[in-house]
């Protein structure tokens, strides 16, 4: 993985020193809150309901064991012994004290981490496919691209005060695990059909929140070497023409929508044509230097199927189920990409204790070439595990309560922190996730239902990606109580779609019943091994709406 060079190191250390001074000046009264707020936000410090919150960037979700151990230490020493992995592959601490933040930033810098680009109207921490570099169907590892964008965008003077925040995601695979169509810019590495050269498909104007939009493709095949100049052209069009008069209309998706994808593309291409590409695009040597950090580890030569694994599966059904649900095919024979579920039944999705972080860090060091990933679905990945080691890993995870076999299933719920922590939330999310998990706790039943993504947001800003959940749940306030709006048919993959609202809002207590009825319709209607989302696509929302109305009628 990427290691800081002297410039990265100096940049991060300087930022720690600057913020330390800013905190001192805030505490001695030299800076007012109005002056200080934009400064703290540039360093990931938010004020939530009960305390400050510190959001730590995990670039493209890649971590090593030393970094995860440092996060565990920070959680223990300066927080309440746990952290929350987010839908942007970051980590949030919920209880840091402002006076401690400079020290925490110093500890982060010690392990090449920081909180830059986790807030504010800048290009945010770039996200990527959590199976980057290991997915079998991958064309190219997206992380060198993500790292290049990180370096280009960090403190970029022209793009540090954009009309609004700006999120970029990259995938190098056919299957989209990075929700690129719901980002301001989504990049997909693909091969040109004629030249077979690796290019980018560039989508712009995706996003969730108040006005959900699926990104529009503005370039089918952008040569790799032109990436930064093309991004710069997009950013310039947005920076000049994006609306600064209305916060709710300031994202690039609104600009793309208002002038149309065709006109937006025309303006970008015009800007791109007049930019001096060679002066903007990265030096090929630098690109190669970055890419070298992401070279695959030295895999052992192993048989494609491990006999040790097969023997353990044959004698231990619980282990066999976990392997079936939580592992993904790996490029290297005899290896697998293992997802560690942070969704044990009844826990806050994405929360991990310091002890759990240390355990996973130990496992990564011993069994996964010291590498870890954070997924946007709020789980962790050990990307390079020998199949024959799975049983030992499973046993150790089990001792820490981390052996849930539910990846991609109904209890693998994405949930924002909601009104249990967040100052922007209009309703709680976590207890809704917990109630649904309890309802569907039976593992056999979860597998019977198959892949089903429930995503919950506690406000319209949609950090919980509810619009692209197969079942989406949005918490709002209605007449002084929490009310939950259910959407159906959203899709976060390469077939990205925004879900449709099923009916009137429900009380918190009614939500598990509603989910249950939706699932019952699916189980009745599905043909053979048809998945939940495929069934919705085939039969439409009608039967689900009818079942949903029974819930609202029963409640009336």
């Amino acid at each position, binding site marked *: 993985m990427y290691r800081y060079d002297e410039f990265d190191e100096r940049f991060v250390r300087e930022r720690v020193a600057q913020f330390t001074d800013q905190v001192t000046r805030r505490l001695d009264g030299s800076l007012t809150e109005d002056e200080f707020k934009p400064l703290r936000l540039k360093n990931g410090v938010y004020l939530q309901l009960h305390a400050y919150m510190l959001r730590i960037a995990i670039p493209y979700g890649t971590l090593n064991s030393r970094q995860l151990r440092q996060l565990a230490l920070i959680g223990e020493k300066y927080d309440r012994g746990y952290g929350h992995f987010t839908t942007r592959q970051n980590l949030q601490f919920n209880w840091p004290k*402002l006076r401690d933040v400079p020290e925490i930033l110093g500890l982060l810098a010690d392990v090449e981490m920081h909180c830059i680009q986790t807030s504010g109207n800048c290009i945010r921490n770039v996200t990527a496919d959590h199976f980057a570099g290991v997915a079998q169907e991958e064309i190219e590892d997206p992380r060198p691209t993500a790292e290049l964008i990180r370096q280009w965008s960090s403190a970029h003077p022209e793009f540090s005060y954009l009309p609004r925040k700006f999120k970029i995601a990259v995938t190098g695979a056919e299957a989209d695990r990075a929700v690129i169509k719901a980002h301001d810019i989504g990049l997909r590495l693909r091969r040109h059909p004629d030249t077979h050269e690796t290019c980018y498909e560039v989508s712009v104007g995706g996003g969730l929140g108040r006005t959900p939009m699926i990104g529009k493709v503005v370039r089918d095949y952008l040569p790799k070497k032109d990436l930064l100049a093309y991004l710069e052209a997009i950013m310039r069009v947005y920076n000049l023409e994006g609306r600064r008069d209305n916060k709710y209309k300031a994202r690039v998706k609104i600009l793309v929508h208002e002038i149309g994808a065709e006109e937006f593309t025309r303006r970008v291409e015009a800007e791109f044509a007049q930019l001096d590409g060679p002066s903007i695009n990265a030096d090929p040597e630098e690109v190669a230097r970055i890419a070298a950090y992401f070279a695959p580890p030295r895999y052992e030569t192993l048989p494609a199927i491990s006999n040790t694994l097969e023997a353990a599966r044959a004698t231990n059904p619980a282990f066999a189920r976990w392997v079936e649900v939580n592992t993904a095919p790996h490029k290297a024979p005899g290896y697998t990409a293992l997802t560690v579920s942070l969704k044990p039944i009844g826990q806050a999705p994405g929360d991990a204790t310091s002890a759990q972080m240390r355990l996973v860090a130990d496992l990564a060091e011993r069994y996964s070439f010291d590498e870890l990933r954070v997924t946007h679905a709020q789980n962790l990945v050990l990307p390079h595990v020998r199949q024959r080691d799975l049983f030992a890993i499973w046993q150790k995870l089990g001792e820490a309560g981390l052996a849930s076999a539910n990846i991609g299933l109904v209890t693998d719920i994405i949930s924002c922190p909601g009104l249990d922590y967040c100052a922007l939330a209009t309703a709680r999310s976590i207890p809704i996730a917990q109630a649904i998990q309890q309802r569907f706790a039976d593992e056999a039943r979860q597998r019977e239902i198959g892949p089903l993504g429930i995503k919950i947001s506690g406000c319209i800003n949609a950090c919980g990606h509810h619009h692209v959940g197969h079942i989406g749940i949005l918490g709002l306030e209605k007449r002084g109580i929490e009310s939950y709006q259910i959407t159906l048919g959203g899709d976060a993959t390469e077939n990205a779609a925004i879900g449709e609202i099923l009916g009137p809002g429900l009380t918190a207590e009614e939500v598990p019943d509603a989910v249950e009825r939706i699932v019952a319709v699916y189980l009745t209607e599905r043909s053979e091994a048809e998945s939940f989302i495929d069934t919705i696509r085939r039969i439409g929302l009608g039967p689900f709406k009818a079942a949903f109305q029974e819930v609202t009628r029963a409640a009336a």
Partner: protein
Amino acid sequence: MATAAKRVPLPAILLANDLLDGDVVFATADGTGALAWTRDPAPALVANDDAAAEKLEAFAAAELSGNKVVDAYLVDVAIESGSPVPRHFRERFKTLGPSNRPDLGKQAGEGIAATPKG
């Protein structure tokens, strides 16, 4: 023409976050009757009339500019068993802590001195 800032219905209490720690704090009257901050919502001073609310607002303004607290605002309350309880669920959570973690926050007694039982 200047219009008075819209105020929440009374009775109301004043809450804020401590600048240094971020903890939720409540305005209370100390032994001498002067206003001070407490981390315990129970002794929060309840403003029942405009004069009392104005006093809380003046305290909020002074403490914000004095860099003691951030995000100070009045919250309308009901009196339940003699203690003020915010009417809105959002502010109620601020007096308690995360509902999924009863072991954390004010609901777990954090920052609240044990009251003698009698």
